[in-house]
């Protein structure tokens, strides 16, 4: 499978995530879209990992080139988990005070 296809696919997912961030007003959905972006990147990294691995294997069988990307993905997931915990805590805190998760509602701070 040519790498471009993976890249295109991942970029599409990423962009959908971006569009979601831009068009939705619900903080949780926005956050979910960000997670979508992260996942797109994850897949991209894995694809690259397999690309480099494939290239390396042709030269040196048994090479583990490209494994770092998969580890990176692992770390992204870890971080995402931590982020989600904090993020949701913040959203909940916000909801407790304002009874809303609408980000357009968040405009006391401006200008």
């Amino acid at each position: 499978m040519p790498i471009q296809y993976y890249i295109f696919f991942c970029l599409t997912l990423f962009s959908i995530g971006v569009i979601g961030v831009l068009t939705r007003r619900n903080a949780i959905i926005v956050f979910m879209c960000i997670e979508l972006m992260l996942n797109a990147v994850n897949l991209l990294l894995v694809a690259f990992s397999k690309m480099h691995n494939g290239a390396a294997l042709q030269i040196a069988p048994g090479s583990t080139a490209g494994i770092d990307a998969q580890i990176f993905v692992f770390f992204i997931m870890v971080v995402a988990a931590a982020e989600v915990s904090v993020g949701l805590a913040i959203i909940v805190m916000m909801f407790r005070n304002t009874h809303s998760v609408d980000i357009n509602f968040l405009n006391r701070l401006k200008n």
Partner: protein
Amino acid sequence: MNAIIVSTLLGVIMMFVSWGTSNTKLQRNIGLVGMLVLILANIAQMNGWLSVNFDTKGMLAFNAIGLYVNTILFTITFIYLWINGEEIDKIGNHTADYYAIFFFILCGISILTSFDNLLMLFIGIEILSIPLYILTGADKKNLFSNEASLKYFLMGSFSTGILLLGIAFIYGATGSFHLNMPILNPATNLPVEHFLMSAGLLLLFVSMNFKVSAAPFHFWTPDVYDGAPTVFTSFMATVVKAAGFVAFIKVFEVQRIALGQNTWIIILPFVIVSTLLVGNITAVFQRSVKRMLAYSSIAQAGFMLFALYGNSTFNNEALILYIVAYSLATIGVFAVLIKMKDYSIESFNGLAKQNPALAFLTTLFLFSLAGIPLTAGFFAKYYMLNAIFTAGAGIWLLVVAILFAAVSVYYYFKVVQAMYFVEGAPAIHPIEKSYARKLWVIAIILLVLGVFPSLLFNYLYF
């Protein structure tokens, strides 16, 4: 390495302290002692002592400048905690937890000053960011704080996404996360043209700009700085931002040639000029000093971005001096601001009459921010301009810089004017003698550096 280990340990200790005792003063003092230990540990490593001989497998690389920046930032943090200790207590009742968070942030900073791998950059940034989301929202009952926190969080996460996409591109191009030299064409000795690499770097550039609040990625800054509890704004705007710059430089020190020098000298000036423009111009019309300072910190970031322009010891010197001058002055101004009951400029009216010492100190801090000679801020700006000029920047860029510096004088001096030339009764929280004395320490440092700036670099060379 010492700094990372010790700060983590101290963070954990502070978490336990929060369970062990509810005496905030004790917690505070433990925190301060911890800071001292941290500084000492870092200095020890600078002198080659007590360094854990640990193979980082290319994840981290320690160099003199990184360690020195650590020391400086730790010291600034120490001064910050020393001055603002009591104010931190007043935000919720999590003193020890805050200290733990500070230590974790410092751990993140230590990583950002020494990373040698994009993974560590990513983790470092996250270690830095996540605690900041929390600190921003620490004033739970305050809607502004909530709002700032959520905004910061959403935008921060978004920029993390951009950062990761950038890293993925770079990985796709090079197959490695190391901060290597880009692939050079042996014939021309120029980097091989690789669009994926360049795109990755551009995305990285964007997300780093976001972290250091450069325009047009600065939008979170005013709202977050304004909404966050003032003590924490003071920290975020100084130490954290400084660390962001150090990381920024580390990434692009070498890598930027992969972007092509030409691209670099277009996009960087573009960002710098728009940052200066937005920061300075918008600050002019602010009624709230806190918000004005938020914008001014954007403007100052514009100046600090100059450090990225060139690639020599001048730039490092300039950035170090700028960080010290800017951070100390900002901490000083915020320390005064905290004591005001109302953050509007009018509330400063007549401060000089009521409390001449405080007014004088504030003036000094603002002078330093504005870059008036006799304060460290002047030399910071001077070194910066000197550095970019040496690096080959056109004079027009310097002229733009000073035009905006003049604009910055305009809004900083509005506060000075309010204090000295307008009659009024400022509403101010009671201030102990010791508090002012602490501020004098900052003032003296600024003045000394304002006359002998090279004291700061003696370590690096002598």
